[in-house]
């Protein structure tokens, strides 16, 4: 996929239709990000929130790849790889927390998890 996106962006930039495809990738990222934010803020299910976080991270990855391809630089791809690795770890931790919450409360509804209420 990376190679495809990169070749697409490069092709477009070399074909003279400058920034058209880049804009579309950025728009895709922005939409994904907004969906992710909505999911994080609005879903009651903790698992869904975790999935929405993954959406946000992937929106970022698309941005990184798009800019990296635009500048013909592999650094964007490297950063995206790091983000994927970190996201995997984060999801592991997050699911473990959710699992423990479920075990204790038999619920994964975030509205029930308000022990920090001041």
């Amino acid at each position: 996929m990376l190679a495809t996106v990169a070749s697409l962006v490069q092709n477009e930039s070399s074909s003279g239709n400058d920034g058209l495809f880049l804009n579309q990738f950025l728009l895709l990222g922005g939409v994904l990000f907004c969906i992710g934010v909505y999911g994080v803020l609005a879903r009651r299910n903790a698992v869904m929130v975790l999935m929405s976080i993954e959406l946000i991270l992937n929106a970022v990855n698309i941005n990184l790849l798009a800019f990296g391809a635009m500048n013909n630089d592999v650094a964007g791809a490297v950063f995206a790889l790091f983000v994927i690795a970190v996201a995997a770890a984060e999801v592991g931790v997050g699911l473990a927390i959710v699992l423990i919450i479920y075990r204790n409360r038999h619920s994964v509804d975030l509205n029930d998890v308000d022990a920090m209420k001041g």
Partner: protein
Amino acid sequence: MLENAWIIPLIPAASFFLILFFGKKLPRKGSELGIAAVGLAFVLALVTNVQWFTHVNDAEHKAEETEQEAVGTGHAATGESAAVVQEEPKDGHETEEVEGHHFEVQPETKEWTWFENGGVDIKVGMLLDGPAVMMLFVVTLVSLLVHIYSTDYVAGDRRYTHFFAFLSLFTASMLGLIMAKSTLQLIVCWELVGVCSFVLIGHWWEEKANSDAALKAFITNRVGDVGLLTGMITLFFAAGQTFDIATINAKALDGSITHTALLVASLALLLAVMSKSGQFILHTWLPDAMAGPTPVSALIHAATMVVAGIYMVGRLYGVFYEGLSIGVSSVNALAVVGGVTVIGGALLAFVQNDIKKVLAYSTVSQLGYMVMALGVGAWTAAFFHLFTHAFFKACLFLGSGSVSHAVHSFDMKKDMGGLKKWMPHTFWTFMVSTAALIGILPLAGFWSKDEILAGAYQLGGAGNYKAFMIVGVVGAFMTAAYMTRCVYLTFFGEFRGHGHPHESGPRIVVPLYILAGLAVVAGVANLPAALAPGSVELRFEHFYEPKAAYFPSILPVFDAPEFSWGIALFSTAIGLIGVGLAYLWYFKKAGPHGLSERSALAGTGYRVLQNKYYFDWLYTDVIVGATKGPIARAAYWVNQNVIDGIVNGAGRFATLLGRLTYKYIDQGVVDGAVLGSGAAAEEGGQIFRKLTSGKVQQYGALLFGATAVFAGALILFV
């Protein structure tokens, strides 16, 4: 040696420390160190003297040569200048007569900077001129003889080592005082000899009387020190911030210092002379100082330390000469103090039963002669008398020590009498010195006393100092009489003591003979011109009188008295009459004995003398008594009212202040701040707790919202 004479005081100074640290371990307990040091100092002083004579003679020859050269070139010159030469002898004639005064002898000086302070260099150094060289000889000689004498006199004493250590320190300080270049150095040495005097008077301090006498000497001298410091400070500023003695003198003489400043300085310094040299009215410590061991009395309280005052005046003679107008007046403070002391001291010597006290009052009286001589302007006479007096008075004191060594007492009336038979050596030396003191021709005292009298008769302004000559003659009469009494009570009549007195050992007798010998011949040092061939006349004046810009001899009014047969014979006759009357009174029991019981007037006079003019009573009872009571009461009143008032007031004020502080600041401000901050924190917490709902998504919404706001701001404003 002249330029290195500063080593001489350092030798006994070193021996002081050596004796103090190692003296007790030595076979002779430190005395050998003291004798060796002072002996070496004496030898060096002799060398210095001889070289000084050469130095003076060289200066004289050089002056003569240049004078001849000037005359020679004058003759060789043209007729015009020949006319000038023709006139010259008229001027030159006068200078010829007083030629001795008119060549200059520069003193040998050396100087080191001690420390610098505010632009003023404090220097120590050596000013070696005639009087200093003369005193070097006197001090080291008498000190050496006293050291030898003491090895016998204080043998077996528990503080034998200590005694010799302080003799060394005294010798060092006295020599330092003699050669002092600056007034500051003079003051330091002046105090050092005072401390040594204090320590040695109180050598046997276990007895209350001795330690009292030491304290009295010390405290009386503090009174004089006030004057010393005042005078020296005045001179320091008047002479343009300098401590240098020669500079101060030169400035005093050439008129760069105002007469008022000189007068103030000399009167203040006169106070110091009165305390140190036992002049009326601060003489009271000197007779009490006889509580010390006799060698100490001979060295410190007869020959050397007590003449420090005289020496100081002679050293700063330019200041005194100008300040008191000695050259042109016929009465001045210095002469009056000296004159009163001559008579007052001599009268007191009549009623003393303690042989040393007779000698002490005699010393007071003789020191009066010296001060008087300085007062009338007879500088050389004063120093010559100092010179001769040192020998015969030291001999008398050591003789009295020898006597007391034999009879274990100083009381002439109770424990002496008839000692002529038992102690021939002491007797003869004592007699010779007595004769010298009385002023019998041709012994030392005759020449020096006569010079003082001639000075009083001839010097000064209109009318001269004739009144003081009469004082001197009366003093001579009384000196003769009280010494006859003293000799009678000690050596003639029946022995009134216990046991069998015996002559003292050689270490006591030999110094007596040496001093008695000097008492005979010392007068030769300054034979008057009328009596001696040119080469030996007035040698003392020739060698020892300073001849430089810092001495009044550069002034035209300054003059030395001429020898006068009239005065000499008159004073000798008066002295002999004194001896004769005293002889008749004491030996032959002639005259109205018991007068003091029969006549109220004579009785009163006798009581006044017995009580030493009530000076001690005046000082201890009237002045001290009158001051200490009121001072104590005043202090108590101040304590009760002022200090307690301040303390109580401060306490009350503090209480009030505390209450106010508690009420307003503590309760109001501090507590208000504390409580208010607590309340504010609580209210704030109540408001903010609503934010912490515990709902993660609400937190997240805030996070994103805030991020969005900041991002918007970033885009809009950056």
